[in-house]
C-alpha cells in the first residue's frame, strides 16, 4: 500500500453517490469518523508476507450448463410484487437517453 488517502467528508459524499444513498451533514460527519477508524485498522495488512508459490492452488473449474431452454416456472409470479402499483409492468420515472455504461 502506498500513501494513504485520508477519509474526508468529500470522499464519504462520493461513496454515497456511488451507492445511491444520502446522508445528512451530521450523519456524514459521524460516518467519516467511523470509516476512518475502520480503514486505519486495515493498515495492519501492510505487514502481510509475500505469498509462497503455488499458494493460490489449482482453480476449481466452473460447472457449465447445456444450452437448453428452460422456461421459468415462476413467470406469472415474477411480476406480481412489482412496486409502485404497476402490476405486471415495471415502470420507473422517465429516464434520460443514454445508458449507464
Amino acid at each position: 500500500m502506498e500513501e494513504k488517502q485520508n477519509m474526508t467528508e468529500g470522499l464519504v459524499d462520493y461513496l454515497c453517490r456511488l451507492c445511491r444513498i444520502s446522508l445528512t451533514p451530521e450523519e456524514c460527519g459521524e460516518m467519516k469518523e467511523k470509516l476512518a477508524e475502520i480503514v486505519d485498522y486495515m493498515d495492519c495488512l501492510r505487514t502481510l508476507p509475500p505469498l509462497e508459490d503455488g499458494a493460490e492452488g489449482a482453480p476449481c473449474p466452473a460447472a457449465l450448463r447445456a444450452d437448453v431452454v428452460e422456461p421459468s416456472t415462476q413467470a406469472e409470479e415474477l411480476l406480481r410484487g412489482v412496486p409502485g402499483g404497476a402490476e405486471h409492468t415495471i415502470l420507473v420515472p422517465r429516464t434520460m437517453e443514454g445508458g449507464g455504461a
Partner: protein
Amino acid sequence: MMWETVIGLETHVELSTRSKLFCGCSTAFGGAPNSQCCPVCMGMPGALPVLNRAVVDYAVQVGMALGCAITPVQRFDRKNYFYPDLPKAYQISQLYLPVGRDGQVEIDTAAGRKTIGIHELHMEEDAGKLMHDPWLEQTRVDYNRCGVPLLEIVTRPDFRTAEEVVAYLEKLKETLHYLGVSDCKMEEGSLRCDVNLSVRPAGSDVLGTRTEMKNLNSFKAIARAIGYEARRQMEVLEEGGQVVQETRRWDENKDASYAMRSKENTQDYRYFPEPDLPPVVVSEEHKQRLLDSRPELGEEKRRLYAQQYGLPAYDCQMLTSHRALAAFFEALVALGTPAKQGANWVMGQVLGALSARGLAPEALPITPPTLAALIRMVEEGRLNRNTAVKVFEAVFDQDGDVEAYVAAHGLEQVRDTGVVERTVAQVLEEHPQPVADVRAGKEKAFGFLVGQVMRRLAGQGDPQLVREVLQEKLGEG
C-alpha cells in the same frame, strides 16, 4: 494542416445460442415484455448465475478465428453501475481475464491488404430494454433481453479510414456468419458498433483526444459518422480549441452527432472478480476439439475454390458471399457438376431468382440434386441453355422434378437429324434471298436462317446440329 484520422472499434455481437448466458430463459426475439425472464436474469434476491457452455465454445471459436491468444483460465468480473435496464445493478462481464487477446484481422481495401489488431475479446451479458412512454413521464422496463450473451470485440486504434472500418466489419460479419455463432444483423441489433475516433497531425505518433460514437445502425451510418466526426474534430483543433473526451450519439436524420448528456464523465465501475462463478478453464484439448469441428471459413473456401477448381477470384468471392450459397455450390460439385458450370449457374440464375423473390440464401427452395440434374441435361445436349433457364424458373419454387417437367412439356431438344433436315430444307426453300446472301459471304444471313429453323422447331432445336445441317445443305450447291 494535414490530418490523420485514428479509429478504433468496439463491436458487440449477440450470440445465437438458444438460452441466455447465465440462465435457461429463451433468447428468441419478439416475446411479450417480461415473458422470457426468471429469478436469475431479473436479479431477484438469492438467484445465482450458471454459465452456458455453448457461449464459451462460441467465444473461443471466434477468438481463435480472429487469431487471438486464448486465456487458459478465464474469469468473469462485475461491472457495477445503476440503471433500470440492469436489474442486478451490475453487469457480469470480463475485464481482467477475458476470452482472448492480441489477435489480428486481415482486410482488403483499394489500397491493398492491411492488418487490424484485436486488443481483446470477452463475454458479457446484455441489458434489458427501456421503452420511453411519450405521454406519461414514465419508462417501461422489459427484461427479456437481459442476460442474452454478447461477445465484445475491441480493436486497436489501427483504422485510418471509413473504408477500412467497413472492410473490417464485412470480414468480421462473414467470419461470425461462417462460424454460425451470430446472425450479425445491425438492423436487428445483433451486431452493434461503437466508434472511437481521434485526429492528429499527419506524421505524429501521439494519439489525440478521442470521442466515442454510439447509435450507428448500418455500415453507411458508420461511414458517414466517421466522416462527420473527423471533420468536426479537425475544425475544433484548427480553431485552436480542444476536443472534449465524451460520448456522442449519431443522429441519422440530421446526419450529425451530438454530445450525450452525461451524468458523470467517468464512471467508477468498481470491477472485481465475480464470486458466484468459478474460473472457466479452456484446455488445449478443448481448443483442438473446437478447431476440429469448426466449419470452413470464407477465406479458406475462397482459397480452395481457386486452387482446386481454378475459379477466378470474382467467382470465389461471389460464391462465398454467403455460407448457404457456398454450401449449395459445393454440393453441386460433389454431385458431379463441373465447377465452372456450377459457378455460373449459382452466380447467375440462382442469385437472380433469390433476388427477384427477396429471399435469403438459407431459404433456397431448389436443392442441389435438382439443379445438378438440370445442368447435366444441358451438358448431355438434351436441353439447350435457353430452355434450361426456363425449366429452372419453373421448378425453382417447388424444387420440381426436371426430368418429369421436360417430358411433360416436350421440351427435350430436337436432335432427330431427320426432323432437322426436313425443317432446314423447308426454310431454305422459303427464303431464297438469304440463301443467296450466305453464299455471297454475308454471315448475318446465316444467323437469320438459323433463327428461322429454331422458330420452326419451337426453340427446341439443338443449335449445334441445326448449324451443321444448315451448313451442309448450303454447301450442297
